[in-house]
């Protein structure tokens, strides 16, 4: 996208709403931001924030439980069932990784012991 040159404000017939908005915003920010930042770091705000979050979370839980109960009633898998399946897949992946680690470890040990045997027979 090409940048367009700024319009010379002296030749404007209309008030530039963006300049107006910027001025309003800057004034509001200058007046309110320090007080707002101070308020947001108070223990009182932290307590209120916690209560609001708890209320939102309760509503989420209620919705989730209702949907889950409804799906189970119709013999459909709910979110929890699919999650369990996903978790089992991840556990399987971890088991495979552990086996791979053990095989790598065994290979290293075998290579080391084979190297040691060669060295000893050569010396003999």
């Amino acid at each position, binding site marked *: 996208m090409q940048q367009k040159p700024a319009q010379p404000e002296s030749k404007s017939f209309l008030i530039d709403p963006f300049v107006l908005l910027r001025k309003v915003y800057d004034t509001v920010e200058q007046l309110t931001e320090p007080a707002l930042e101070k308020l*947001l770091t108070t223990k009182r705000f932290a307590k209120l924030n916690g209560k609001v979050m708890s209320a939102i*979370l309760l509503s*989420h839980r209620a919705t989730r439980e209702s949907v889950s109960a409804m799906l189970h009633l119709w013999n459909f898998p709910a979110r929890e069932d699919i999650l369990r399946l996903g978790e089992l897949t991840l556990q399987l992946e971890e088991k495979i990784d552990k086996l791979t680690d053990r095989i790598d470890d065994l290979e290293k040990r075998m290579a080391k012991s084979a190297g040691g045997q060669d060295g000893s027979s050569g010396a003999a």
Partner: protein
Amino acid sequence: MEAAGLRSRVAGVLEAAAHYSPLGQGLSLFEHWLDVVSTALGARDAAVGPTPKEVIWRKNKARLYRYERKTPATKKTPVLCIMPLINRAYILDLRPGASFVAYLLSQGHEVYLLDWGEWNDEDRSLTLDALLTQYMARAVRMVAQRASGPLTMLGYCIGGAMATCCTALHTEGLIKNLVLLTTPIDFADAGPFGVWTRPEVFPLQELTSVFPAVPGAYPDIGSKLLQPLPASLGQFVRLEEKLREPRFDRYGWQAMFRWVNEGVAFPAGCYRQWIGEFYQHNKLVRGELVMDGRKVLLANIRCPILNVVASSDVIAPRPTTSAILQHVSSADKEEVIVKGGHVGIVVGKAAAVELWPKVGAWLAARD
């Protein structure tokens, strides 16, 4: 000739009318407004992560990348970058000219990056212990094996805290240097986040039981609340202003806007541990943090350590980030204070002239 002259005169008059009449000005204002909207809305498609890379190992959603070099490495110690859990990994390779990864490659290092990917609900039982032992430890071994020697671990934000824990637990000598970028370690005075997450007010158990993966929007709202107006309406007001400047880097703004607003979900198990053990109980500096059945003791860190702190960091304030050097046993330890914010020091305009050369020189001296 006359017709052509007349046409050009009419065109000139029309152009002048468009320029000076209220209608013409209205049209330019409308065009400018469209520009602001399209820049902001187009940010989600901003091109990011320009440096070519290959996946050398993967597990679950995590990927270990090796960035491609055009020439053989001139430094023997590779750099492994550990990223924060709640952000996208491309911040270290944001755009051409704003890529820390590209800088490290230009300095002759092999660069690897552990990208955690996008966690989902099925990852709810993942803990930081698991990430450390099943993911990071394997990534470290893999990089060290490829380099046939130890590596430099570079952690950013939460990734830095995890890199610190990993270095404290790793005694096999695979980690040669540790570089921390804006990494919170001591949470005794953690600023607003510390106040909001206090055990008596923060519903940690409810949050992690309702959300198997805590949505990225939650930590994001917290970050925005630190500077409510500038982080919300203010960013668009500033965008409008900057779009009038002919040299404004629109694509740079879009890439940054995309990263800031593209948080990833935090697995519930990790979140519980991060907030509970780090923020609420400050177990890491107290020497009480147990991971994988072992105590994470910062005093076990003996490798050279570079701690990069941002002067005006509101996300990880100075008291949280400066503390590490008092607790490690390293003889070679250094703190660098860079002017800027939590993210700005890594990819901002000053990063290329201030932070990157400092880290580059520090690494070169310890290669």
